[in-house]
């Protein structure tokens, strides 16, 4: 009998699957952060985020050993999208979002904004005017309450943001979630053909607006974002009518929004999650135009500009200077032909000095605030 029971137990034991080996989270974190394939990083990041509390200590250990800015954006997005509401996850996202040096703080804040938890509203409220446009946009989205009528306040103010990218990001999100307050912005963005130093940023606004419009207007809009406004005129006309008929809202006529044709001979674009982005272009006759849009300019003193112009070879840089991960300074010059991307703490001394002199010239030209904005960002990019 004993033998029979033993044999039966043994057979039973063999039939059972062995217990799964515990996941080696350190290995998974390494894979999520260091795999050379972005697809593998995304998959491992999702696995870690789904495990939430169990994997977070390994992630924090990796971050401590390698630096928080070595974390790829994919893992922050994974926690934002798949991490759930575990207290450890909320603490992790909150810590990332409030670390002003962290490259992916906007993605972390997005994770909190999408969760719509009341305890994060103070964070959203004090972040609604952050210098980084995507960060303040997610703060405003976090403050929006479904079904709330927008009458004043930071969300509505966001639709008047000085950065046209922030306007369309917020308008698109609101529209996709049933709030038509930014419909006019979307209509304008669909016609946006503007560029900055060769970068077609207006077309990106157009695609963002198109994606939002497609969430509400069903059927094939026959709108081709690769084509300009004139070539899309019939489709734009239908969208315009839909806005007016269905939403009873005023939107601008679909007219092309284009560059002015002003002859810029150089400029810089500073993308800084820390300080916010800064855009400057200049013309050969010594006018500096700040911002993506050509709404105002600063006239430099002719003698000062002449000297700067003569010394512009200081801006002759290689195509890539330093290791760009997120924040970067892009510089473009016609003569000599320069198109460079520079990482933080990598801008050579000669170019830094030239740009500092430009800041001084801007201040001399009467715009102390703009000069200070440039100086602040140069401190991030100047090589030590």
């Amino acid at each position: 009998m004993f033998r029979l029971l033993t044999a039966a137990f043994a057979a039973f034991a063999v039939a059972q699957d062995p217990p799964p080996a515990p996941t080696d989270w350190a290995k998974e974190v390494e894979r999520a952060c260091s795999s050379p394939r972005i697809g593998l990083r995304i998959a491992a990041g999702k696995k870690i985020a789904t495990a939430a509390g169990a994997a977070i200590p390994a992630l924090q250990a990796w971050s401590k050993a390698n630096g928080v800015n070595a974390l790829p954006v994919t893992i922050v997005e994974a926690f934002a999208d798949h991490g759930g509401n575990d207290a450890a996850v909320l603490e992790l996202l909150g810590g990332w979002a409030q670390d002003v040096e962290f490259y992916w703080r906007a993605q972390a804040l997005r994770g909190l904004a999408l969760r719509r938890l009341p305890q994060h509203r103070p964070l959203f409220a004090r972040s609604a005017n952050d210098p980084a446009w995507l960060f303040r946009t997610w703060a405003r989205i976090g403050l929006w309450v479904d079904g709330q009528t927008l009458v004043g306040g930071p969300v509505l103010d966001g639709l008047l943001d000085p950065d046209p990218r922030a306007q369309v990001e917020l308008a698109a999100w609101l529209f996709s979630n049933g709030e038509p307050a930014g419909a006019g912005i979307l209509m304008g963005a669909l016609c946006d053909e503007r560029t900055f130093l060769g970068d077609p940023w207006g077309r990106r606004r157009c695609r963002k607006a198109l994606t939002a419009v497609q969430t509400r207007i069903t059927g094939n809009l026959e709108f081709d974002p690769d084509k300009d406004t004139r070539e899309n005129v019939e489709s734009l006309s239908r969208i315009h009518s839909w806005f007016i008929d269905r939403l009873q809202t005023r939107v601008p006529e679909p007219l092309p929004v284009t560059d002015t044709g002003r002859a810029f001979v150089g400029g810089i674009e500073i993308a800084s999650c820390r300080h916010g982005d800064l855009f400057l272009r200049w013309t050969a006759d010594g006018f500096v135009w700040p911002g993506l849009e050509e709404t105002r300019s600063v006239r430099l003193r002719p003698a000062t500009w002449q000297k700067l112009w003569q010394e512009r070879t200081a801006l002759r840089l290689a195509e890539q200077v330093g290791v760009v991960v997120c924040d970067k300074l892009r510089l473009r010059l016609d003569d000599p032909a320069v198109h460079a991307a520079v990482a933080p703490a990598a801008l050579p001394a000669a170019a830094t000095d030239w740009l500092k002199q430009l800041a001084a010239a801007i201040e001399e030209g009467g715009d102390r605030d703009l000069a200070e904005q440039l100086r602040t960002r140069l401190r991030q990019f100047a090589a030590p």
Partner: protein
Amino acid sequence: MNATTVATLLPLLLLAGEDPIKTSFAVLASFTWEEGKELPAEVKALDEKIVSISGFMQREVPGGAPVGQFLLINDACGCNGTPKLNEIVFCALPEGVTTDIKPGVVTVTGKLYVGEQKEDDIVIALYTLDVDEVK
């Protein structure tokens, strides 16, 4: 020139004469991709065709050295987050050839391959491109 050489060169000569099909991310990213889902006909039609497509060069992993492979994406600013897999063209230069990552918009020409590629049973690419030229 022997027959073997002709046979080897002929396809290359034919390829050299083929006008690239101009495509864009508006086409490649025009749908919501899910693993295993059939791709739109207009996207599948580009498989193994010589195409030209404009976008921004990005490294698959951070670094500073010239690269033999790069991602072509639609958005210059990584701040907007990770592109979806159908918003990335994985570009490979010929064996031994490298390039710097250029700032600004580039146009890449080469043979496009369309379809899910897996590693460790995970989809790692939808679009790969053997690069002939980066301008």
